């Protein structure tokens, strides 16, 4: 339905795209890695040129990318609707802060406890604890199907916020607590210690975190992409399409559900640590239902099931309100905080809401599906007329496998 609706819109441009790409396919194959490499070089060189604002936004985006990829494995690939992502983010962020933070402080902070271990330990333990939380929740998740799971996981978010509000020695309670700087083997990711200049540009906290963000996001991306191409990845996709079919094929349904929860919440844990680092403090309101919903927005906009799509969606959803805020005085309709009218955060939310509806109605594959459609049109027309066999779709076009073949079996199994 949605395909037929939007196809005529793209049809006008269609002849140009395949004509250009089809004959030049082998150079195109070389071109893609080159483009990626160039993109990476630009990213690496960026701190030399751009302002601190963009670098900070970049690190926030990197954190969101990690989280979105994790949620996408769960929701997009395996089809387990989860609204609990904010809870797992919180587990990671709080564990990191508690393990690497300092005990005590002035005034109300006197009650705070911390283990004062090296930050890298805090990060690793934070990720592991988030994974553990996911593993503990997975028996519940394994019993619940579809929408029941979605609402049960909603409960987890509220319980998480309650714990954050009340467990003051660890979480800082209602006011939250500040997050210790990250450091790795004596190299601090703070403003100094050691002072660092590259080509005359001072490398302070923002620049250092920028590189940390690139490394972590890239690692998260590659891990997820390889996971999806491997045997477990195929098993997870079968699980989404039909649990019965999966178990007939020899996939241990419960075990795989538990594992995907483990992996997804570990991603969330790392994302939580990065979020804490980027903001510099944690508070209960940072891990409410809104956050879970925004993560869901990211993966829907990016395209369910596509790793690159999740990254794109995360960048869009995270950067948009920040950019709106930065350029509030230039943009029409958006006003600076404090003035009347629509402020940046609200404007961004309208856009997300609208974008979600439009994507689900007209392009269920999201941004990734949009990109794929142009890419695959040439191939499809070259190979065979009609729909082509979905199983022959190349591994890289993971989101075409999401949109096309998965839907009919999902319908069939849900009506009973």
């Amino acid at each position, binding site marked *: *339905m949605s395909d037929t609706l939007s196809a005529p819109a793209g049809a006008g441009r269609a002849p140009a795209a395949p004509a250009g790409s089809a004959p030049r396919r082998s150079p195109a194959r070389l071109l893609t890695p080159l483009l990626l490499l160039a993109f990476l070089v630009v990213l690496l060189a960026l701190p030399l040129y751009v302002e601190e604002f963009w670098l900070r936004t970049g690190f926030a985006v990197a954190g969101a990318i990690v989280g979105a990829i994790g949620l996408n494995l769960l*929701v997009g690939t395996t*089809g387990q*609707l989860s609204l609990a992502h904010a809870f797992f983010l919180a587990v990671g962020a709080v564990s990191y802060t508690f393990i690497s933070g300092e005990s005590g402080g002035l005034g109300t902070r006197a009650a705070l406890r911390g283990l004062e271990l090296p930050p890298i330990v805090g990060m690793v333990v934070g990720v592991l604890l988030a994974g553990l939380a996911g593993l503990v929740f997975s028996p*519940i998740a394994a*019993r*619940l*199907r*579809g*929408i*029941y799971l*979605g*609402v*049960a996981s*909603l*409960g*987890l978010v*509220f*319980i998480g916020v*309650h*714990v954050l*509000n*009340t*467990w003051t020695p660890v979480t800082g309670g209602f006011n939250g607590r500040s997050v210790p700087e990250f450091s790795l083997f004596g190299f601090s990711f703070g403003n100094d210690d050691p002072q660092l200049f590259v080509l005359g540009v001072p490398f302070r906290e923002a620049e250092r975190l920028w590189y940390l963000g690139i490394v972590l996001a890239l690692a998260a991306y590659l891990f997820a992409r390889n996971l999806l191409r491997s045997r477990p990845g195929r098993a997870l996709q079968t699980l989404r399409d039909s*649990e*019965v079919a999966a178990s*007939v094929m020899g996939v241990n349904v419960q075990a795989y559900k538990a594992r995907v929860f483990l992996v997804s919440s570990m991603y969330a844990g790392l994302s939580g640590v990065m979020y804490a680092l980027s903001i510099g403090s944690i508070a209960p309101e940072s891990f409410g*239902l809104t956050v879970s*919903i925004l993560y*869901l*927005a990211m993966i*829907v906009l990016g395209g369910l099931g596509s790793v690159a799509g999740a990254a794109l969606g995360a960048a869009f959803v995270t950067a948009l309100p920040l950019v709106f805020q930065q350029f509030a005085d230039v943009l029409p309709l958006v006003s600076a905080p404090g003035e009347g009218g*629509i402020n940046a955060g*609200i404007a961004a*939310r*309208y856009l*997300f*809401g*609208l*974008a*979600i*509806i439009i994507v*689900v*109605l007209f392009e*269920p594959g999201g941004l990734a599906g949009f990109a794929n459609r142009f890419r695959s049109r040439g191939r499809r027309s070259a190979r065979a007329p009609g729909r082509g066999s979905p199983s022959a779709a190349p591994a890289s076009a993971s989101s075409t496998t999401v949109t096309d073949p998965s*839907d009919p079996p*999902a*319908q069939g*199994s*849900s*009506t*009973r």
Partner: protein
Amino acid sequence: MTQFLSLLLNGISLGAIYALIALGFVIIFKASEVVSFTHGSLLLLGAYTIARLSDTLGFFPAVLVGVLVTAVAAFLVERFIINRLRGAPVISLAIVTIGVDIILLTELIRQIGPDILNVPHPWGGDSVRIGGVGISENRLIAMGVAGVLIIAFFVAFKYSSWGVAMRASAEDGEAAALMGIRQGRVSALAWVVAGVLAAVAALFLVGAPTPGVSAAAYTVALRAFPAAILGGLDSTGGALVGGLLIGITEALAAGYQEQLSFLGRGFGEVAPYVVMIIVLLVRPSGLFGTKELTRV
């Protein structure tokens, strides 16, 4: 003992309000297979409209308009979005309602701002005592109205042609369609009914002992989710039981806060979710939900 009875009564009255919301939730699910995350903001829309208009129009006309506005909003959501996605996976449908919810909620919160809008209920904020057990008049009336509405709903569901059509299409959509039941109309009507129920619930939810309409009403409305899930998403009777159970749990947990202090302040707000998770562990489809069977 008096305290317990008082908490119980207040819990039941709160539960009656939750049951109204949960009922709307369940009929939407039965009619169009959608879990509507829009419900919280629809409820807030009703409350906001009533609060804004009651100064100029007077209370009862404002209530009428509020109910109407909410029903129309629910209808529009169904017509323009849900109806176009017939047959889409359940997750996509849930996500699209989240999208609607984001827009509607953002706009409402922007309109309400940090204020608390007061709804001038004619019965005010007084409370009455029944044999030593105190309850606010608002809640007492809520219980009565909810009772009447719920009975009316169940009668309509059982005997009216709409009720029969809806039960038929919930049972087997294709067969119902072949018998000449218009699925689109059934689904649209279900959304309208759910909107009405939500607006009525909103009317009482923002009365005493709650201070008035604020963004917090949305969080309260969300607690109808556990009510619906607990009873079983496709069981109207379950919604009723779930609503009462959640209401009583919340009232008791809030009332015995001192005794439960090891669980932290404000545990009453979380207790519904804890109960829901425990129930789901024992019965994965809720108390009265249909078990999902898989045939190969």
